[in-house]
Structure formats: C-alpha cells, structure tokens
C-alpha cells in the first residue's frame, strides 16, 4: 500500500472524468487470431468450446422464451434451427475433432469447419437453401463472441463505479453492459474513431484508449480516468481525488445549464445553425429531447436491430420504430438503415452493400419504417453508398416495399424523405448525381476521411495520419458544399468532425449550417457555436483553402475561434 501516484498516458476518446475501481476485462481473442495449442491444452480448449456452446444455447433459449411471449412465431422457429445447429454432430463434433487432431484453438477450428460447410451450401442450386448459410454465420458469430467474452466478469458483480480496463473491448461488449453503470473505460487498442469509441461517447462514458501500460493497473485498484486529458491516474493521492471531485461537480452543473437553454442554436452574430443529435439506441431519444435537440440527425439502427443477436421481424420492428417516433414527438428522426461495421465484416458488405445482399432484412426494416412513419416525423438514410447503380437498386427496393404495403392495405406516409449518406470518396465526388435522386444528403466525415487517407480507423498506429484539417479534406468539403448547394437539397454533417469545436468551425467556414453530434457532445457544441462568429469564419474560406498543410489549417482555425493552438502536432 505504499505505491505512489502514477500517470499513464493515452489518447482522449470520450471526454469527462471519473473516479472508480478498475475491473480488468481479460483480453478477448480476435476473431482472426489463429493459435496453435500444446497437447496439454487440448482438453481445456475443448472445455472452453463446450462452454461457449452451452452459453450460446442458454442465450438462444432465453430469447426464444421472450419471443414466445411476444407471439413472434416465425423468429422463434428460426431460433429452433440455431439451437439444432448447436447440437449438430456434423458441426460440434467436427470442431472438437479439429481441435484435437490439428491442435488449434477453438476459434480456428470453428472457422475451418464453417468454411467447409459454407462451401457445401454454396454448391447447392436451391437459392433458399443457399441462404441458410446465413444461419450458420449467425451462430458462428455468437459462438465466437461467447468464446471471447468468456472471461468478462459476470456483469452482476460489477461495482457501481466500475472502470473497465482491457486490451481491447468490442463495441458489442459495451452494448451488452449498457444497462449497468460503467464509470469509465480504458483500453490499449482502438482509436477515437472505433465503434467502441463512438459507443462510449454516446453512453457518455469517460474513455482513454491507447494506454500501453495496462499491467500497471491492478484489478480492483482505485483509479482516475480523465477522458478530456487522455490520462489515467493510478493510486491517486488525496489531493488528486478532491481535484477530480470538484471537476465532476462542475461538469454536472454545466451539463444542466446547457440543457436548460431552450433557445435555438445560433452563432454569436445570429446565424442559425441546426444542431441535431446522433443516437445508437432507441432509449436515447428521450435524452435527446431533454437536451433540446432540434432533430435526430442520425439514428444508427443496427445496434437495436441486432439486439440480443436475433433478427426481428417486420411487426416487431414497426412497434419499435413507432415508439421511437412517438417519444420524439415533433422532432424529426433520421433512421439510417443497417450499417454493419468493418469490425466484423469486410468492406464488401458495409452499409448499403449489406442491405442489398440481405434483402429480406432490408425489406423488413423498410416496411417497418414506412408503417411506423404515420406516428411521427421519420426520414430514411441509406449508408455507405458508392455508386449510382447501388443507389438506384436501393430506391427500386424502396418503391417495391411501398407497393407491397399498398397492396396489403397497410397505412404508411408516402412522403417519407429518403437521403444518402456521403461517406465514400466516390459518393463525395458524385453527390450532385445522388442528390437528384433523393430528398436530402448527410455527410459522414469519419469514413470519408479514413478512405481519403487509405487508413483503417480501428488501427491506432495509423491514427496520426487521420486529419480533418488536411488540405485534401478541405477541398473535398468545398466540393461537396458547392455540389449540394447547386442541387438545392439540404445537407447535414453528422460525423465526428461536427463534434469538436475546431473542426466544426472548419465546417462553418466551408458553409455548412446543419450539424448533428453525439449526445455527449451536444451541450458542449451548442455552447461552442454560440461563441463563434459566422461572418468572420466564412471570410476565412479562401485563405484556408490556400494553406498547404494540416497544422497551418488547424492553427488558423483555432486562433480564429479563440482556442489555444493544439499541443499535439
């Protein structure tokens, strides 16, 4: 107990600070991590696999019980099929045999057996049966997840002030913990643009990533996470603790203040900036209206869609979406259709590409959105579009879904605006062509910037290459603004760029006047925009576009809004 205070450095991911007790999450294995094991490890590896089979079955049975209560017969039968796969010798016994004979870890064996089976399915001529490999994928995902999270502490035992510490925490794990209170999060891998980071911000969990000295944090230790400074303090002194106690009180107060102001968001010189909120879960709609958000600029529907790992049917979804719209009252809600992240999928199946390949899911979701649309002000946003052909295909499906609803005599509102997410370089350069076909545009800066720089946003070693202030990004923003202006279609910026005062100022410089940010950033951004001078910023555009590097752009913008120059350069 004689250890003295130490400070570990990382990167700031989700602001705010927390004092709490460290809960070590053992490092989950990555899906792609294939390991050879020693003969002595075979028995325990098989036991680990069996445990994950048991755990998966138990989860499925629980889900089934819930579905039966909701009379969702169709989905309940699908779960039957999943359960039977988990008892199938062709699957389970072969995986065990592989672990034994090849001496490989369970993840690898699952992968190999699944590949064999999928090949067999692909050879079938029956389209419907070929689709059944989707059930297999679903089960495999669940198994892998359970294998990996086997070491997560039982959630019921989390202390109230738990700060989760682990090498890498998947976004889904955070999601599963969401009903518990998590005071903070510290990880070694991941960057501020990973899905875990986005999730942490939306849950307002102070988070520091990129901390390389995790062994320095013993389980159960009292630590401080300062997400605003990007530091973790181990064995804090009394002085440190009281300092952070004061900070916490101040943060709470400023949050209440920002939330209480009901007047619309505007710059210092009175230019209206529409400020919306980005949400990941339907539960956040209430919080968004409490902080006087003008609209929901982005509701990432996939988190709720794949909740519990199941696939909801159209009726269940209709009820969910109707509730969202009822809760949001007159506030417009932009439902982004399912966008499965790159953490589990290849780029080939991101966003709209996933929807086009899984049309049954896409159609169920669209049908539900249209049916729920009579309850409020809904807008539909198509993610990750990269070609006009894809967009046209999606629009054709949308028309078809509407025709089907009319035939079935289901009431729906015909005028639901359809929008396109501009987040690939291809979409950015053709956003005028896309705008002709839809009602609104939404600019997703996170993906757009990473694909401009050809980097992976979950890879922290490349994070320094990511810069919203880069001349290439400025030129791209300028182009998008001009094209959208010509098209006359409204555009909202809903990426991380809008959630930081300096990069949001760049957006104002470029002409954008509609932003949408995570709930955690909402009060801060409302406050920051109120102190910006729109006219002064707009005058900067020529100068800014003439600069040659990110550092110059950033420092010019920061000084123009009265911020100190950034220390990391």
């Amino acid at each position, binding site marked *: 107990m004689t250890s003295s205070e130490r400070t570990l450095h990382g990167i700031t991911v989700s602001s705010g600070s927390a004092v709490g007790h460290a809960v070590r999450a053992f490092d989950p294995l990555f899906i792609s991590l294939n390991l050879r094991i020693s003969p002595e490890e075979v028995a325990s590896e098989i036991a680990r696999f069996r445990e994950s089979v048991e755990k998966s079955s138990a989860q499925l049975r629980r889900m089934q019980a819930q579905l039966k209560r909701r009379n969702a017969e169709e989905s309940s*039968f*699908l779960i*039957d*099929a999943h359960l*039977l*796969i988990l008892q*199938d*010798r*062709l*699957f389970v016994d072969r995986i065990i045999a592989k672990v034994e004979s090849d001496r490989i870890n369970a993840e690898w064996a699952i992968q190999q057996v699944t590949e064999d*089976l999928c090949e*067999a*399915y692909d050879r*079938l*001529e*029956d389209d*419907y*049966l070929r689709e*059944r490999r989707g*059930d*297999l994928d679903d089960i495999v995902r669940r198994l892998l997840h359970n294998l990996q999270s086997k070491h997560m502490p039982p959630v019921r035992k989390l202390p109230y002030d738990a700060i989760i510490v682990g090498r890498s925490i998947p976004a889904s794990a955070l999601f599963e913990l969401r009903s518990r209170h998590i005071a903070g999060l510290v990880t070694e891998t991941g960057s501020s643009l990973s899905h875990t980071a986005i999730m942490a911000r939306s849950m307002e969990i102070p988070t520091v990533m990129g901390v390389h000295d995790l062994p320095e944090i013993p389980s159960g230790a009292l630590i401080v996470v300062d997400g605003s400074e990007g530091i973790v303090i181990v064995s804090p002194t009394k002085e440190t603790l009281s300092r952070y106690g004061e900070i916490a009180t101040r943060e709470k107060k400023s949050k209440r203040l920002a939330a209480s102001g009901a007047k619309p968001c505007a710059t210092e010189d009175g230019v209206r900036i529409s400020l919306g909120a980005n949400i990941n879960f339907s539960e956040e709609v209430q919080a968004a209206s409490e902080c006087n958000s003008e609209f929901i600029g982005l509701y990432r529907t996939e988190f709720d869609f794949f909740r519990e790992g199941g696939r909801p049917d159209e009726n269940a979804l209709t009820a969910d979406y109707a509730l969202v719209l009822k809760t949001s009252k007159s506030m417009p809600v932009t439902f982004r259709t399912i966008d499965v992240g790159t953490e589990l999928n290849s780029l080939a199946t991101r966003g709209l590409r996933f929807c086009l390949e899984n049309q049954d899911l896409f159609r169920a979701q669209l049908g539900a959105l249209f049916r729920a649309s009579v309850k409020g002000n809904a807008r539909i946003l198509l993610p990750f579009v990269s070609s006009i052909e894809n967009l046209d295909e999606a629009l054709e499906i949308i028309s078809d879904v509407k025709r089907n609803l009319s035939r079935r005599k289901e009431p729906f509102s015909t005028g639901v605006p359809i929008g396109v997410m501009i987040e690939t370089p291809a979409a950015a350069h053709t956003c005028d062509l896309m705008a002709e076909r839809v009602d609104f545009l939404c600019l997703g800066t996170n993906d757009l910037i990473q694909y401009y720089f050809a980097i992976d946003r979950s890879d922290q070693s490349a994070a320094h290459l990511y810069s919203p202030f880069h001349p290439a990004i400025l030129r791209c923003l300028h182009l998008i603004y001009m094209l959208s202006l010509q098209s006359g279609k409204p555009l909202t910026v809903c990426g991380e760029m809008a959630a930081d005062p300096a990069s949001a100022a760049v957006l104002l410089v470029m002409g954008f006047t509609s932003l949408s940010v995570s709930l955690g950033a909402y009060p801060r951004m409302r406050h920051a925009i109120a102190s910006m001078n729109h006219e002064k910023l707009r005058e900067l555009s020529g100068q800014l576009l003439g600069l040659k590097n990110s550092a110059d752009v950033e420092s010019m913008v920061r000084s123009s809004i009265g911020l100190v120059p950034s220390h990391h350069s």
Partner: protein
Amino acid sequence: MIERQIAIGHRMGLHARAAAKLVQLTRRYESEIVLFRNEGGNNREADARSILAILLLAAGHGSTVAVRASGKDEAEAVDCICEYLKG
C-alpha cells in the same frame, strides 16, 4: 434394419422449418436414422439428427428419399418419419 422410400410432400421441400421439425422427431427414437437421396446418380446420405446434413440433401417438393432406421424402435421410427415427410 428397415428402409422405406417416400416422396417429400412438403410444399417447400425439406427446408429449414421442416428439417428442424424432422430432427426434433428423430430425437424421440433410439434407432440410428439415416436419409438417402439419389440425385443424378449421386447418392447422398444424411444423419437425420443433423439439421445441417438434412438441409444439404436439398430434397425439394416431390423428390424421393429413402428412410433407413436400425435399432430397437426402427419400425415405429420409419413409420413416424415417413408419415411426417408425406406432409
């Protein structure tokens, strides 16, 4: 050992729902139960307790499969399964 041929009567063939039901039925019997299907000279077989194997048989509506059971309750098993497959 008893073997009997039967034409699949289910409108959709041995698809997921029917296959799942079939696996649940075979669970009631002790006997080993195997399905055979001859398609274009290719003889394929499936353990009737394996949903993945049954789906891979790709036995559509009207196709013929042979149900073979061996064990104490083979007669009841074949009766019950053929009755089910008739649709």
